[in-house]
């Protein structure tokens, strides 16, 4: 997984995972997020950049 450069993401996604009792690991959640952007985003540039990584 590419390291997150967002301080806020790095700080709060793990806390939200705990808060929601999410069974997936951070790595699995981030891949889930990437897949969701690639499959659903209506901004073509967003999809293309998400797909490159």
């Amino acid at each position: 997984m590419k390291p997150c450069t967002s301080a806020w993401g790095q700080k709060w996604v793990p806390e939200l995972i705990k808060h929601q009792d999410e069974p997936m690991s951070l790595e699995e959640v981030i891949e889930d997020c990437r897949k969701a952007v690639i499959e659903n985003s209506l901004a073509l540039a967003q999809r293309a950049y998400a797909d490159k990584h």
Partner: protein
Amino acid sequence: MGERIPGRSVESVIEQTDLSLLLDTSTEPMNATPNDSKKRIEQLKHLQAWETQTARLLGGWQPAVRLWEAKHAIGLHLWRDLQTAGELRTRLWELRVSRPDGSAVVESVLPAIKILACAQQDFEFIAGLYLGAKKALAEAYRAYLEETHATWDVPSIDILRRAAVIKETKIEWAEAYLAQVATSDERRHIVERWANYAVEVITAAGGVCGEDERSAELPPPGYGCLLPFGECKRDDRFKVQLQGYDRPPIDDDEAHTLWQFVSYTIEMQAAETLASVLWEGEGMDWEFYYDVARHCYDECRHSKMGEERVRELGHEIFEIPQFTGNYAWRQLYDPMRRYGMLTYIIEQDSFALKHETYKNYVKIGDTTSAEAIMYDIIDETMHVRLGAEMGAGID
């Protein structure tokens, strides 16, 4: 040496001088009781909780506010509310209260907030929040300033004076907004009814300082809660479409520049997603709300930056359809994934595009576009630097 007053020493004059005259303050010291600090601490605890929870509520409603200018204003207001809450919490820390979020505070504030969320229309919600809750906060700050000791409590006075002015400015904003939007008798009636109802709810909850007697039950709203919103709204000036735009070739300077700054205006969807996370992330640490509120406001600023540049390029944003579908599909996911998509995927991956286009603007001599992009990169770079510092030592 100071000039001597005949028959009196300088020291005796100072001793007899009201200290409030030496301090630059218009508030006279009042008769503080031995329990004054305890009372003030309880007030400040409740006030910071109301600031925090009203900011969350603004976040919950921001996507459904139709008027574009109001949507921008709310992005700023929710950030200002969290800043005020932060200052109050710092003061509480000085007063030896390191954890101001006791369950009693949360339990007295949250039920009222959840009822105020139940407005059915954006202008109705704004009437209740601003003419009800924010007005109560402004009055509470003024009352505190009147009552507290002008010497002992100077640090609180500095904070509450500023907070009162900020609140009063927002109430003026809301009055102007409502005058613009609530133009029919029916709408004016809804505004008046919901604002009065909000006052009843806050009173029944024990007031924003938590000092008054609390009713066993809060008056029911008679409506179900519409939050969280599955779609973000735009006002009637906009054309809306679900699909985004293809990126033109970068060497088509005019088309690419317009595409890029229209894309910035559409960052309002990111602000709206963050605003919804602010509301739905109930029970998180207070710092989470502070960071998400700033992030939300940053996205509003980026959208505004796009709007201004589009206008400089000879267009109005209302001529170009906005697409709102990215907010809509993100709402199908839980708040944690929405936040993860924005921070780990969308923002992170957009860096390459921003750097590429910045260099191109410099190359073609479009300094204004380059500077605008640079400000955005500076916002993001701050996050990168913080991220790198935070990440040091983490495998």
